[in-house]
């Protein structure tokens, strides 16, 4: 073997190694958490409220609140996100300054740290504008956090529909909205669904903005939309901070539940994407 071939071989090994280390970290994280949390993963976690005694403590209010938040975020972010994407892809003329501004604005919002959205929530709630430190506020803030992601992925889905579909519709005398609502939108549903599910799973794992709008409280009862709340990732944070080994184990068990929800949604999204990938 020449020096050149040895170098080429070593380089390839390095590239594979870097991917292997990433995967190794993933496996270590998942296996470690499962081994630690599995003994504490029982029905108590789903039926009991938090408690100062680790043997009694559960995460029922937090799990319920996270499910409520999922519904709220979907309810708000999907219509607004898809409507914005349709406007930008199908209506907006790119040469107008306000449309270019809209686009750059959304790109920037997508990369604003989540905790800054928490400050936004804090500022409005504390100044008495808004609904207060309640579950609805949490749903609204998380909607704003993931809205740019929903918009960007819905735009990509709409852009993937070829113009020949639109032109075919126009040639038959359809109006613009008829073409969009009956041809373009149905064709882009798998793409929009994939992006929205990924965005929703991100919202459910998000913790930082909720800390600032007061989700870090002790809630012993089932949450309501207009009542105080704590979400599953915030409950995990609360338990991780407690030194008692029992709470560390509870945190691991709650992480298993959170990962099951979030990674389950990721899996559905990836499956949808590969199943419905359309070749035009």
């Amino acid at each position, binding site marked *: 073997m020449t020096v050149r071939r040895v170098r080429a071989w070593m380089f390839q090994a390095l590239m594979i190694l*870097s991917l292997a280390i990433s995967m190794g970290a993933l496996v270590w994280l998942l296996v*470690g958490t499962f081994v630690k949390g599995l003994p504490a993963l029982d029905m108590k976690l789903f039926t009991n409220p938090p408690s100062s005694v680790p043997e009694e403590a559960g995460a029922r209010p937090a799990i319920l609140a996270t499910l409520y938040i999922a519904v709220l975020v979907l309810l708000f972010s999907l219509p607004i996100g898809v409507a914005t994407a349709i406007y930008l892809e199908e209506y907006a003329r790119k040469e107008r300054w306000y449309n270019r501004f809209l686009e750059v604005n959304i790109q920037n919002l997508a990369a604003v740290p989540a905790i800054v959205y928490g400050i936004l929530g804090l500022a409005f709630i504390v100044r008495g504008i808004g609904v207060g430190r309640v579950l609805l506020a949490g749903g609204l803030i998380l909607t704003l956090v993931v809205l740019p992601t929903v918009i960007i992925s819905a735009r990509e889905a709409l852009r993937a529909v070829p113009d020949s579909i639109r032109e075919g519709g126009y040639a038959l005398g359809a109006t613009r*909205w008829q073409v969009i609502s009956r041809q373009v939108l149905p064709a882009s549903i798998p793409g929009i669904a994939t992006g929205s599910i990924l965005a929703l799973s991100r919202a459910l794992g998000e913790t930082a903005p909720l800390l600032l709008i007061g989700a870090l409280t002790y809630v012993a009862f089932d949450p309501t939309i207009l009542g105080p709340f704590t979400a599953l990732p915030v409950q995990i944070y609360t338990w991780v901070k407690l030194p008692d080994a029992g709470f560390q184990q509870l945190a691991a068990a709650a992480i298993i539940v959170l990962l099951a929800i979030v990674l389950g949604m990721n899996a559905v999204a990836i499956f949808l994407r590969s199943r419905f990938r359309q070749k035009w």
Partner: protein
Amino acid sequence: MAPPPSGAIAGGAPFSLRSSHRHYGEKVIQILLGSCALVSVVTTLGIVVSLVFPALEFFAEVSPVDFFTGTVWAPLFDPASFGVVPLLVGTLSVTFWALLVAIPLGLGSAIYLSEYATSRRRVVLKPMLEILAGIPTVVYGYFALTAVTPLLRQIGIQVEIFNVIAGGLVMGVMLIPTIASLSEDAMAAVPQGLRDGAYALGADKLQVSTRVIVPAAMSGIIASFVLGVSRAIGETLIVLIAVGQQAKLTFNPLESIETMTAFIGATGNGDLPTGSTEYKTIFAVGLTLFVITLVMNIISIRLVRKYREVYD
């Protein structure tokens, strides 16, 4: 765009592509969609307003010079001191360790996926990287505190319970998919002709990857690094859980420090009296954080646009 009535042509009237009757419903729909698009503008406005006004009130009480050059951060003590430098250094220190992990591993994974992997392997490996991106940050924080820090102690590195290096390394793992997928996009956008040309000249994969593909995709790769930095600076839960809340001016990775985000996350949960200077600090630090990440994002967007212009 209905076809014009045939009479228009026979009569010699100007040929018009406009519909013969107006669709008012169409106009209403367009306005409705446009107003949904305004939500994002209102969000930006809301963020700016909610940060700037309390921050201005803060800077009326504490001089901006003291804030940006002071080296003691003790807003909750008496006498209070509002020098943000320790928080900036803390943020920088965690970011450094995160990038030390994420840049080589992310770029290596991207080169492998783009230039080496068969398409069948790519179909399996890319979703696995995406799983890393889907794990909530509170889980990474837990992992850093309960798995990485004990491991570091076992192999003889004397770290404090809360320390920079465990949080930084785990944050690096979190950033790998961000850097890998953006860099891979940039490499995939390099025209096949460049690869074919280099192979025709007798280059091997190592040479094609390092001397043709990476330089050609450089602006996209740098954009992925910049976005990685921006995400590292804005990440909250990992530092809150594993790095601690001790604002010290040190680059020592074995000690506990405080970052800007950790301060906001730990202080902003409603214990402080509204309107106090301590309370307004949250907004001053938040504004600093927002401006830094905004600049990073603008640089990254520009760089991505640059490579798209060259190859599309």
